[in-house]
């Protein structure tokens, strides 16, 4: 842990005295100069990561809830919320100001909240069916893991705003902890949750294609690497972790490609798209891994930029 952690006050007072154009020259020589843009850059990357997951949730919940005939009016909620989270991601991605935005914060908080409510709703939906929490119901009724992706979008967006919410030139912290480590830990947990969902549904699909093992092998290892990064040394070179995260990010999009092929393999193929897009593998779901990997890369940069 760096000195800034235990005594943030001098940094703050230094910021007040500094003029924007001459910040670097005034940094005390014994301290590593903090690029004032680091927090903003990391924040924008996290906004983007959050937006990627929001786009996945928007399309996925639109398709799946359309399939569910929007039987309950609350089924529109994730569409609205993920759309707002996506807009916040686009806005945040282009916003270079070193402070959080109240509208984005509201969008992210509501995404996380609606994600939590949705998860509870889906758990209730599974539990009330005959057989309760049997594999049959976990496979075929409301997927418990899907609303959690909305929580992740909200969480990453919320962290993006907290990373920005640091005085320029100071080490970004969240609730007193190094921001990079907080994001890394959050991403590791998010990856494992998403792996659980993919694992359950690919198990239902009997892993009939060997590529179906990829989302239950590549991301868990990425989660382990991120857990290590969250806890471990900030100075250790993590080139392998970066490459593994890039692989995970590519895997998210490749997954959509595989799912597009999966739809084609259903009876009637793409000509029968009104049936098979609903009945086949969910095309918009896999890029949740991409969003998480992007967030993990942002977290790594934050950690590595940190002063040990």
């Amino acid at each position, binding site marked *: 842990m760096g000195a800034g952690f235990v005594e943030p006050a001098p940094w703050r007072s230094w910021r007040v005295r500094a003029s924007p154009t001459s910040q670097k020259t005034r940094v005390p020589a014994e301290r590593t100069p903090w690029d004032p843009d680091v927090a903003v850059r990391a924040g924008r990357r996290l906004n983007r990561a959050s937006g990627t997951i929001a786009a996945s949730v928007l399309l996925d919940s639109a398709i799946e809830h359309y399939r*569910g005939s929007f039987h309950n009016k609350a089924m529109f909620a994730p569409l609205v919320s993920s759309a707002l989270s996506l807009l916040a991601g686009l806005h945040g991605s282009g916003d270079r100001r070193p402070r959080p935005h109240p509208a984005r914060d509201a969008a992210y908080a509501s995404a996380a909240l609606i994600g939590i409510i949705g998860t509870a709703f889906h758990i209730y939906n599974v539990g009330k069916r005959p057989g309760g929490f049997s594999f049959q119901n976990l496979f075929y009724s409301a997927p418990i893991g899907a609303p959690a992706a909305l929580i992740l979008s909200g969480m990453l967006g919320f962290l993006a705003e907290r990373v920005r919410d640091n005085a320029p030139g100071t080490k970004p912290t969240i609730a007193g902890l190094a921001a990079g480590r907080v994001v890394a830990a959050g991403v590791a947990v998010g990856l494992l949750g998403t792996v659980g969902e993919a694992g359950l549904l690919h198990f239902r699909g009997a892993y009939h294609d060997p590529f179906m093992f990829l989302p239950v092998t590549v991301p868990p290892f990425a989660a382990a690497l991120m857990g290590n990064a969250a806890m471990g040394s900030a100075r250790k070179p993590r080139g392998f972790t970066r490459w593994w995260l890039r692989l995970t990010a590519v895997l998210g999009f490749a997954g959509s490609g595989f799912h597009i092929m999966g739809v084609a393999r259903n*009876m009637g193929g793409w*000509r029968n798209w009104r049936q098979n897009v609903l*009945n086949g593998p969910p095309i918009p779901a896999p890029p949740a891994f991409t969003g998480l990997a992007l967030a993990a890369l942002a977290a790594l940069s934050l950690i590595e930029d940190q002063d040990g």
Partner: protein
Amino acid sequence: MTELYPGYDVLAKRWTQSWNEQTRAVIDARLAAPREPIFFTPDEWRCLSAVCDRIMPQAENRPPVPLAAYVDLKLREGFLDGYRYAAMPPQDEAWRRGLAALDDEAMRLHAARFHALSTARQDHLLSRMQRGELNGTAWGAMPSALFFAHRVIPDITHAYYAHPTAWNEIGFGGPASPRGYVRMALDRRDPWEAAEAKPGEEERARRENDRVG
């Protein structure tokens, strides 16, 4: 009877994603079944047609489902049930003997063939068959009640519900091939399924059924 699925025509699916070449071929073959006896003799055919009219009376305002022709087709092509009551002969033999026995009972009771009787007399004979009360020598060892319950009723009703006209009547989607259904929960409807007219919603159902494809 009021229409339950107003405006619904399952054949409108013909050129949509719901059907493919195989589906069209199957339905075409079914609709093209010859309306004349090939397996049955003319006498058997007249008797069978009269039985069909009483078991599955049809509306006057539309072309009837060719019930006798479908029974003929089943016997001619040898579509079997997969099981048979030990007291019953094979299906083709059962039908020949049952129809001959029915004509025989009609001749003995009313001095006319079955098809020439009034509908009341036909119904009376069929009811007695159902109760197993017909046991002239023409039946042989075949119990008339078993013939009624396991040949007459299933073969004629299955013939009826094999035809698109019956599907329209009950809102059935026809062959789910290549397109199946994705909304499996009770009382959920895919956009390519027939819309049922709940009281007061006939117009809405008609609009929905215009789009079924």
